[in-house]
């Protein structure tokens, strides 16, 4: 799940090829201005991994159906007899896949958001800015409208969404790319336009749909993590793993690109290659995430900012910590979403914004924060 970058990327003790961004001024005790040292990388990452494991265990305890500690322990250790069968099924077949799904989806959204904010140098960027999510949503809507959700072993809907997302990646790239380069302003505009067009088509599709099947589209759009199938879980985990490896390899380049494209190029960064890699990785990961979980807002945009406030803007640390932080936020939010009005549930997007929003406002008001300082 967690991939440690090779030592040459993490330690700064021997000067790497690309110099880390030089802070203009230095304030004592302010994480965002500190230079990243290997010791701090390991300390923060260790803490985050511990927190993530703690959050998984914490979230396993809570659910719509209250389990006693004894039942929980028996289920976790597989020392169950017939009467505790339900507890075991609830823990291992329902809660655990769902928590894992929350971790993967949250991590994917947050790491994509962090990478894209650096790529387009815009604090408002999030995974949905590329237009991929709207393409995926359109795919899912069309799938629902034509009843394609039933094909391929219950994976019809994610597949429709993924195809929609893939087509919109091609479309956005085709619009934005010119002469082998991928200018960022064109990428942003292409994403916005594709978003608008796909939203319009989706609205058209929903307006001619039978109202009775309309609610299924609405449910899908609100986003859900409930009871994921194993192939979906494995697929998103695999995509996330590849994406983390690829993005971490570009983290130093992203540090420099965040300062400025010209500066990065003058320091030897092959900015075209980096931009294309980051775009493609982000787009595919977004498409995969939206396909399995629908549109879950807030995590992708705000978690990178939270991490930047707390840990600094160095992407070697920002990317993995964002991933783990996004995973934790979504896991906890989903636990709240499935327990507050139990046995009913509420959409998880409501809770991510309600938990993360106030925390972010608090940090924004109490800490000094300069985007990519």
């Amino acid at each position, binding site marked *: 799940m967690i991939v440690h970058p090779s030592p040459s990327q993490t330690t700064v003790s021997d000067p790497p090829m690309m110099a880390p961004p030089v802070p203009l001024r230095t304030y004592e005790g302010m994480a965002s201005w500190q230079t990243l040292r290997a010791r701090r990388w390991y300390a923060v990452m260790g803490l985050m991994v511990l927190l993530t494991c703690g959050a998984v265990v914490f979230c396993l305890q809570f659910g719509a*159906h209250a389990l006693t500690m004894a039942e929980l322990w028996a289920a976790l250790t597989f020392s169950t007899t017939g009467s505790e069968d339900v507890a075991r099924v609830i823990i291992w077949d329902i809660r655990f896949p769902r928590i894992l799904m929350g971790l993967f989806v949250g991590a994917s959204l947050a790491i994509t958001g962090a990478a894209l904010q650096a790529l387009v140098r815009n604090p408002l960027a999030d995974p949905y800015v590329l237009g991929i999510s709207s393409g995926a949503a359109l795919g899912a809507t069309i799938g629902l409208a034509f009843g394609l959700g039933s094909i391929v072993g219950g994976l019809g809907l994610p597949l429709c969404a993924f195809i929609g997302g893939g087509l919109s990646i091609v479309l956005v790239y085709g619009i934005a790319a010119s002469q082998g380069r991928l200018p960022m302003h064109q990428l942003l505009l292409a994403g916005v336009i594709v978003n608008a067009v796909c939203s319009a088509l989706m609205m058209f599709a929903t307006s001619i749909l039978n109202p009775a099947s309309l609610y299924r589209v609405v449910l899908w759009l609100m986003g859900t993590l409930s009871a994921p199938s194993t192939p979906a879980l494995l697929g998103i985990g695999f995509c996330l793993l590849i994406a983390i490896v690829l993005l971490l390899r570009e983290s130093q380049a992203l540090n420099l690109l965040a300062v400025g494209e010209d500066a990065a190029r003058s320091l030897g960064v092959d900015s075209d290659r980096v931009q294309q890699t980051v775009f493609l990785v982000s787009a595919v990961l977004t498409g995969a995430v939206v396909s399995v979980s629908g549109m879950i807002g807030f995590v992708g945009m705000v978690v990178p900012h939270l991490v930047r406030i707390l840990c600094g803007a160095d992407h070697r640390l920002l990317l993995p910590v964002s991933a783990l932080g996004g995973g934790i936020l979504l896991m906890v939010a989903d636990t709240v979403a499935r327990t507050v009005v139990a046995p009913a549930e509420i959409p998880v997007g409501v809770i991510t914004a309600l938990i993360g929003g106030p925390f972010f406002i608090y940090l924004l008001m109490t800490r000094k924060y300069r985007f990519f300082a």
Partner: protein
Amino acid sequence: MGTKPVNATVCFGGWEGAGSRVNHEPEDLPGKLTDVPSWAGELARMSCGCNPQGLSRPWGFFYLSSAAFRTSRWIGFLLGAGVLLTTWAVPATLDDEMLNMKRRQQGILTGMPFMANITPRTFVDALGRKLFLAKAPSRVVSMAPNVTEILFALGLEAKVVAVTPFCDYPPEAQSKIHLGGSNPSVEQIIALKPDLVLAPQDFIQPDLLHNLDRVKVPIFVLQAAQLEDVVAQIQTVARMFDRSKAGDELAATIRQRIAIVKVRTQLLAHPRVLYVLNTDPLQTVGPGSFIHQLIAAAGGANIAADTSTAYPRFAVEEVLARDPELIVFPVGTAEGIPEEDQQQWRRWSSLSAVKHNRLVLVPSVLVDRPGPRIVEGLELLARAIHPEAFTGEFQEEKP
């Protein structure tokens, strides 16, 4: 004050518009001085014991300086206020019937054309709006599949000019003019020159009522909260079209069939039932929904009976814990649960329903359309829940 807008409604051309709309016209707001009734000045004089001299407006006693009040006047004022409060509060303690009688008399006494209230040709719809029909309508627009089914069941197909594209039963309904999808055009409705529009409360655009009111196209809103409401609705529609006899006969048949189902199932043990509206995320039916009542009437116990909304998202683990003995899937052409989703439920092998292979398919059009065929849906559900209580005699009864 939360009273019904009975006293504020205005009649025009036999059709009495929504009272609340009239109230919201800014010139009708009660706070404006021009609207102050003449008795207000009298009241001021009586309660204060003084004539508000120098003030041309009868509302003037509000503007008197405090020096104008003397202690004795205050006592008079308080007494007057007490009398007013008593007269205002006493009707609130009376029961509803008395209250309505009192209001109706007021309406007649003030000369409002409230005769519409007491004619047999006045119909009150689900929103409390009153519609006066001098004669049976001859051009009807149906805005929901269940309304179309009611109209056709009453033999009124010649009077139906337009239906929605989703009105698939009876098949002849498809030959009528189609309104535009879930967002019908007001222009189209007006151009059809209907003398009655029958609409459901759900799924219609919020401004449709207002727009049709403005051009004086009579619209009647149907909403069934209970099984009995459906039958009553059929009778109401029949009365509108002077088909009371046919309506009463149809209603009697339906009531009888409902009664048979209830008699056979109510004394049996109620098995736990899960109704799957959507699989991922799981959405089911709660109290307040129509299907929840159907399940209860068919002798089942909905496992989501303790949720607060009509169509709640439901936790899968709670399904496992509550262990439904029967899982019901709605199926249909346009709507309904796809086959693969049903198979997904079989992975929860600890459920009684899965162990005993009691996953039941019910045509969604029979259970979620509050029309005459609802009783067929009820019978299907009852047979699925209590196969032992029925020996298949319903097949002969079906048309």
